[in-house]
């Protein structure tokens, strides 16, 4: 019984993820010790505690809400990466699809004054189109999706900067506030703000993203489309042999992945939580963190929900590090260290398996030796 428990795939994934998290925190702690030993434990606790750093319950709830607001887009990016990964495609372009999603949702909201639902659908559409490009290149010219994805990330970034300049404040590089310019574009809260002591950034985005994670899980595990997708990912030659339309599936997969990332952007920017800075010179990290969340979640859509939350939790927690002891970049450093280690989940899982196997053998051998010794005595 016990043996089968440890050999269970889900248990192993969970364990590997937890070990990665602990390892990340440990290394983060060591780095902090090296920089300034006096504040290290305080700082790492601050990161872990995140919103619990506040003593008032209402403030805690409000900040818990803020972490959730940022979890929704990350979860969407993670689902985007995961969906493509199952079909054997590494969608590093999620970051770019997310970026053009920002562009679409904000431009529709601020320039055309569309309502939130229209803005959201537009972001989905543009994200999907952006995903289709590497899909077409892969299907018809066999261009590696990682290369075309990275290039498109930059094209997406600068196009976004350029287009959103039309809807930015004259005195700052930031786009207009939705609340003042077009409140109808803000996602409905569905009364959720009451649960988070009035944090009205907590919106439909959160339940919607969780529902989508469940939907993706169902699509992958239970449907014909998921079956085809995973077959293509597992062995493209066999998929072709079996008459699956591999080209169409590649394009469709990346279009859906792009749609998910684009929706993620809408779920973030249509809350008016943040404005876009039109001088941004790096692709938003959301898409890249999505890769980490995918692996930390054990390549499972449901696992990804928790992984995304965790990553946002420590990223937000980084803000609470005592800035008098550490420079301001330290929070990003610590969270990126932890995110980096999340990539080791699969590796850890394999090593875990071989350790379990070895232990079992040892036990079996010992038992046998004992039995023999007994037999010999008699």
């Amino acid at each position: 019984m016990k043996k089968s428990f440890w050999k269970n795939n889900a248990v192993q994934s969970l364990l590997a993820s937890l070990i990665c998290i602990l390892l990340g925190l440990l290394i983060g702690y060591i780095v902090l010790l090296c920089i300034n030993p006096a504040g290290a434990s305080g700082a790492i606790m601050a990161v872990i505690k995140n919103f619990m750093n506040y003593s008032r319950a209402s403030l805690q709830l409000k900040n818990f809400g803020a972490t959730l607001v940022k979890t929704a887009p990350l979860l969407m990016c993670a689902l985007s990466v995961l969906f493509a990964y199952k079909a054997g495609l590494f969608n590093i372009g999620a970051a770019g699809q997310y970026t053009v999603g920002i562009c679409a949702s904000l431009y529709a909201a601020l320039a055309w004054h569309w309502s939130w639902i229209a803005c959201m659908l537009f972001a989905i559409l543009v994200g999907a189109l952006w995903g289709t490009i590497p899909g077409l290149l892969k299907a018809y010219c066999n261009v590696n999706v990682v290369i075309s994805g990275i290039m498109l990330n930059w094209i997406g970034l600068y196009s976004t900067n350029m287009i959103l300049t039309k809807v930015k404040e004259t005195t700052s590089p930031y786009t207009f506030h939705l609340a003042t310019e077009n409140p109808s574009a803000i996602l409905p809260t569905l009364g959720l703000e009451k649960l988070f002591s009035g944090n009205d950034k907590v919106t439909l985005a959160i339940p919607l993203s969780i529902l989508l994670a469940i939907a993706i899980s169902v699509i992958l595990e239970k449907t014909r489309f998921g079956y085809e997708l995973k077959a293509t990912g597992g062995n493209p030659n066999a998929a072709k042999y079996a008459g699956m339309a591999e080209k169409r599936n590649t394009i469709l997969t990346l279009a859906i992945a792009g749609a998910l990332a684009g929706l993620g952007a809408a779920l973030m920017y249509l809350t008016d939580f943040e404005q876009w800075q039109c001088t941004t010179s790096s692709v938003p990290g959301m898409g890249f963190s999505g890769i980490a969340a995918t692996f930390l979640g054990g390549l499972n859509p449901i696992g990804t929900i928790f992984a995304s939350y965790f990553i946002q939790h420590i990223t937000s927690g980084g803000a609470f590090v005592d800035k008098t002891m550490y420079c301001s970049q330290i929070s990003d450093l610590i969270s990126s260290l932890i995110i980096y280690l999340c990539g080791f989940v699969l590796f850890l899982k394999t090593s875990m398996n071989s350790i379990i196997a070895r232990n079992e053998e040892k036990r079996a051998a010992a038992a046998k030796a004992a039995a023999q010794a007994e037999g010999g005595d008699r």
Partner: protein
Amino acid sequence: MDNPYVIEMLHITKRFPGIIANDDITLQLRRGEIHALLGENGAGKSTLMSVLFGMYQPEEGEIRKDGKKVAINNPNDANDLGIGMVHQHFKLVECFSVLDNIIMGVEPNRFGFLQKKEAREKVLALSEKYGLRVDPDALIEDITVGMQQRTEILKMLYRENEILIFDEPTAVLTPQEIDELMQIMKNLAAEGKSILFISHKLAEIMAVADRCTVLRKGKYIGTVETKNTTMEELSAMMVGRNVNFHVEKKPAEPGEVILDIEHMTVASKVHKNNAVKDVSLKVRAGEIVCLAGIDGNGQTEFVYGLTGLEPLVSGKVTLLGQDITRASIRYRSTHGMSHIPEDRHKHGLVLDYTLEDNIVLERYFEPEFTNSMGFLRRDNIRSYAERLIDEYDIRSGQGPITIARSMSGGNQQKAIIAREIDKNPELLVAVQPTRGLDVGAIEGVHRQLVAQRDAGKAVLLVSLELDEVMDVPDRILVMYEGEIVGELDPKQTTQEELGLYMAGAKRDEVKA
């Protein structure tokens, strides 16, 4: 007391989920002998060899080298003990050269710089000495399977291994290459190397092996001297009954034309010329036509063109009176064509899928397996897979939910055959369907091919195996350098005549 055994595997037991792959097996290898290992598909031969090579740890039993107990925890340990292995499915780096593959892991270096020249000389000397022809600079992906195998052998010799394990080395070779390999093995044994050799081909075992150990369903049956036994006796030991090597069949009654190929030309991927040149042929209902030839004469490309995996340069394909020259693979597959592919790992299976998912690989979209909402009907998939597993005797650890990768090579093949025949096609394209199968299973597959024929279906068999070519079909077409050079009647012709056609020494004008 001198110990004649270089390797002794004593009372080895190895379990996998749902199955005991090796159950108290003892195998003793004498110094300088060729020792064959025989058993049905899934009997545990590859597992036993993997245990010796350190890839699996047995739950029970011990291994002795020169009488001393040794621990082999991984392939490196095995290598240190002088044990080398050529796997059933080769383990070479495709985009590396032959030389690089041979020296990988034991690269000679001085101050960290590669000393390739030294290595090349050693490899060339070895290849000269044992007649292992290779081109050290060719890339693995460009060379024939035979040369890939010689690379694997050189890899072992380069490491100065004394104990050589060959897991079904002949399954992928042409008859000529097999003869060469047999000679090489004899030379190696004469040099004092000890060889363990897995094969399903009894004639080979009788020809090269000194002794033969037989396994059945994970259990040890016995070890015999080949000079004191017969092929019949061996096969009876192995499957527990007498195997009929000859295919029983009534005379064919060919009916209407099912497949009509006119002037088919297919481009080659490896060279500039076309691989298939202006081939025309017909296959009728109720007959088995065999496309024979030495490997690499365009059979692979011909099948790709026929099944839609590669486009045609020119020509026309008609199936059941319908022009399918440009039809999709799915269309062909749902309109009467089944295809048992040449390479089960490349095309035939999604190795990380379960057995049941592989069984519905070409039918998952049918209403029986997918409902109108696009959801898979798991229960139906499961019961369908269970029926095929039962009917076609597909053996595995956990039945329908076994991951295909963990199945034995022969049972993977049986799963594909079951899937293709059970589609009940009008035309069955079977490319080397019995590759890697045990004699009992081969008999079964041949019977199924004949049953298809007798049910009025057309069968196009592509085979490299001379016995199969002579025994199974009603008509033989010989392919040489992309052209059909002869049509033979298996009842009239001899293996010698067939050989002349296959070697290009004889040719007729053939009208389709």
